[in-house]
């Protein structure tokens, strides 16, 4: 009986140390990944800020006037259709349903 207890205790100690060791390795890896992510996050933030500025509505309106003044045309939204796929069949529907008083 005592031997069994000794063996169990020994195994537990061994298992604990093994688990702790592997956990430590994992923690190290997580730490390294996090440290690597940090500058990437900062870089992403800066790039996104630049993108947000360059694609801001103010800039886009400016570009539209500058480059596409005649190329972009306004479409009546009631004429836009949407495609609905159902049971391998495609149904064409209005994007905005016309109301009774508009027909």
């Amino acid at each position, binding site marked *: 009986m005592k031997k069994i207890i000794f063996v169990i205790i020994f195994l537990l100690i061994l298992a*604990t140390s093994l688990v702790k060791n592997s956990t430590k390795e994992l923690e190290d890896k997580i730490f390294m990944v996090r440290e690597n992510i940090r500058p990437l996050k900062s870089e992403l*933030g800066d790039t996104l*800020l630049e993108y947000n500025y360059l694609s*801001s*509505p*103010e800039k886009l309106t400016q570009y539209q006037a500058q480059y596409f003044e005649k190329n972009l045309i306004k479409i009546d939204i009631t004429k836009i259709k949407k495609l609905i796929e159902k049971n391998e069949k495609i149904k064409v529907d209005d994007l*905005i349903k016309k*109301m009774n008083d*508009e027909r």
Partner: protein
Amino acid sequence: MNDKKNNIILEEYENEFTYEKSKTKLNIEFNRIAFIFFIFLVVSIIYSIQLLHLGSLKKKIEPKTLITKKNYRADIIDRNGNYLIKSVSSIDIGISPIEIIDKKKLLVNLKLIFPNKDYEEIEKNFDKNKFFKFEKNISLINYEKIMSLGDKAIRPEEKLTRVYPQKNLFSHIIGQIDDDNNGISGIEKSFDNELKVTNEALKLTVDTDIQFLIREELLRFKEIFRAKGSAAILMDVNNGAIISMVSIPDFNLNERKTITDVDYINRATKGVYEFGSVFKTFTIAAAFNENLVESNTEFLNLKKQIECNGFKIREYNDKMPTDLTVEEILIRSGNIGSVRIGQKIGEEKFRSFLKKIGVLGIIDFDIQEVGKPTPISWGKCKLATASYGHGITTTLLQIAKGYSIVTNGGYDINPTMIQKKIINKHLQKRILNVGVSDKINKILRKIVTNEEGTAELANVKGYEVGGKTGTAQISKKGRYTRDKINTFAAVFPSEKPRYTLVVMMDEPKTNSEYIYHYRDDKQPIKGTPYNTAGWTSVEVAGKIIERIGPILATKYIEN
């Protein structure tokens, strides 16, 4: 012969001795160690069970650190993840004159790096022997140059700088911070602590593209109608999420100016105004809610003018028929008819209705810059004037909230600009009876489509706009002036409203050159015939819906 006999008696040896392990110190120590290991075993089992239990739990959101980080402030983004504010680190350079080794040499070196500075002033600062800020937000190149001088007197100081890529667009909403990283207005102030500790960006409900388009139209029409200012709010009627909130004039947050001019007040939340006839919708909704009238209930022999305590109440239009149904009263914006309905409701019920839909009292909102509606001493005359929107004040935000509630099926909503605070109407209490919204929505639509209605200019094809106009004279020093507050509260699509758009113009003037284009076959009109909401705010709202409609219809179609 001595015959001696030695007798040997053999007896069975009986000894009481039995073998026992001696109870030595060694034995005691063994028990102790076994006991310790036993405790260890128990602890290990408990720990293992705990580990297994934790492992079976779903991943929870990491608890937010409550430690305020130095030089840190979370970013603010819009509903599409676009930056509204981004924090960046910047370096300020200070100089401690006591520690300067060679003043002349340092001055020459500084002149080489920063040739455009006023060095006479700097020399004076050197002589004062007090620490001073030499240059704020220096570039990385200049930082390297100045630090390579190796002078101990040069002290770099890392600082937090907020960058606003959208410039003026959200100035009234997000507000500003001071030099010590403390919010002093807007979201920056009311979410100051959260922004200092949270690791994630604060997500707002606003949409940058829509905000831009609304602001552009408001600026354009501010010029056309020479208005003192204007404001607009676009709100989701089903959850109170504010998609856009604009107040003109605004300011560029990147310039970090201290705004003291009262003209820059947030007209959407802080400005308290009499909004006039937009209140009639509430009067009629209250009557529907109390089951006192139906849309076709007739009010006969309506006078052209009534008097209350010496105060004359008259129709704005002499052509107003004397017999009108409830529906016609709202469509034609009848003052006397509204008074009659208000009297039918009674002071207490009307007041309770207005309170219920959030029009009276201070609104609980995400920013602290909210106006306090003027307290009312209710009485017969006050009830009469309040029923057509005079002598009663509130904020534009509260008008938007009220219109959202009366059109969304009667569910309470809380206006918010914070994405995580959104609560859908179905999780809220229903505060109005079933059917009230349906009746109101039908009438609001007729105000835009009928010729007798006051909002024909907002009949944008495809969006089924409904709404009510309000033209109110501004009271200055206790007297009504000729200056006006022109408002249009729109809901669309009116069959099942999704959005409320309220547009307000502060002191607009008529424009004799502006051409009004109707959206049907009617001939265009040159010049503003009357300085009313129907010819100012409705036109602005129509143009806004025309521009933002495609975004709302396509971007939010699945939501």
